[in-house]
């Protein structure tokens, strides 16, 4: 497949495949094999399979990433309340230990599966796949995957989601996008959470956070939200609605979507599952 068709040859690696071919015998019994395969291709393959699970049922899968304590679970709680049954949702929770977050979600009347990763600092596609087999996906509109609180590792693993959302809470400071470029580059939407604290924590300048995000060549919209005051919740729900509609329209045409920026592996394998060869551009624009 992609390992042999040459579609994974980029500027950076082209010289490796020229002259001498794929396999070079250097001397008797010694072989030098050119591979050019993403290190996480096994994960990416599983992620593609997960995406098919979602797509077959018309589900939009959203991956929430942030530092611990940025408010991912609180956002989901208020989202569930605000949706008031408009969409049928389910949640996959990732934490190192405890069922606490899943219990919080279940109290809102929504199915939640807890993945306890033990010592693993991120969710991977296999863990999500196991969770999917413990869920009733029929009739669902949106599956939220709440990743392990961590601004580093989760960005490297495709889970099969269609969109990435990165939360940046005001107490964390406005330079997080500059400090964690891999994570913030991967965001299709940035939610500035705990925005009700902006008047108190006045050293946090939203414009500066946004400038750092743009410097990562990311044109993702930035929404200010506060689950305490309810600010921004309406816009957030509107974003979800737009994305769900767009997902259904894509599926009607036999297409799927990946987050705008994906680790190299996902793009190498983009052709395998009948989807587009290139990540879709945002359907929403920042002004």
């Amino acid at each position, binding site marked *: 497949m992609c390992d042999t068709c040459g579609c994974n040859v980029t500027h950076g690696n082209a010289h490796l495949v020229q002259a001498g071919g794929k396999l070079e015998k250097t001397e008797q*019994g010694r072989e030098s094999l050119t591979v050019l*395969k993403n290190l996480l291709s096994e994960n990416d393959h599983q992620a593609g399979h997960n995406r098919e699970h979602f797509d077959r049922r018309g589900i939009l899968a959203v991956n929430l990433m942030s530092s611990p304590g940025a408010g991912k679970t609180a956002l989901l709680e208020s989202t569930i309340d605000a949706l008031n049954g408009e969409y049928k949702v389910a949640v996959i929770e990732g934490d190192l230990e405890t069922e606490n977050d899943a219990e919080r979600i279940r109290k809102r009347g929504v199915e939640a599966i807890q993945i306890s990763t033990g010592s693993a*600092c991120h969710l991977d596609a296999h863990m999500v796949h196991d969770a999917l087999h413990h869920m009733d996906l029929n009739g669902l509109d949106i599956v939220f995957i709440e990743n392990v609180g961590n601004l580093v590792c989760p960005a*490297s693993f495709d889970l099969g989601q269609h969109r990435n959302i990165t939360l940046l809470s005001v107490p964390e400071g406005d330079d997080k996008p500059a400090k964690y*470029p*891999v994570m913030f580059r991967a965001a299709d939407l940035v939610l500035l959470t705990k925005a009700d604290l902006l008047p108190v924590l006045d050293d946090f300048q939203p414009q500066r956070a946004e400038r750092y995000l743009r410097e990562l060549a990311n044109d993702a919209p930035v929404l200010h939200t506060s689950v305490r005051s309810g600010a921004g919740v309406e816009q957030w729900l509107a974003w979800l609605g737009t994305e769900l509609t767009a997902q259904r329209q894509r599926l009607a045409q036999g297409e799927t979507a990946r987050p705008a920026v994906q680790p*190299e592996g996902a793009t190498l394998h983009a052709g395998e599952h009948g989807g587009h060869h290139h990540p879709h551009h945002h359907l929403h624009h920042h002004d």
Partner: protein
Amino acid sequence: MHELSVCQALIREVEALAREHEARLVEQIVVRLGPLSGVEAHLLQQAYPLACAGTVAESAELVVEAVPIRVECKSCGAETEAKANRLLCGECGDWRTRLVGGDEMVLASVSMMTGTEH
């Protein structure tokens, strides 16, 4: 922190290739890493002895080649080098760029010994 997971995936890949080519020993593994892959070269090197222990790649050398970050400007078309947290065009300074290199996390090549030992 996730470098061990990445390293284990790498070893599984190398083991499969070694089986396919009936190698008795893997001598060298070359990996190409970009700064925006999210994987740190030195952490990968530290995780490597744990991941390769007891496998056909146990004595193999892990070579990590660094790939520079390069962006192509959507405004002026220039292709320039950039820093991980400033992916701006080096010519005109515009932030609307496309990454053309620097997020690689690729198993580039594997050298192995095949056939029977003499």
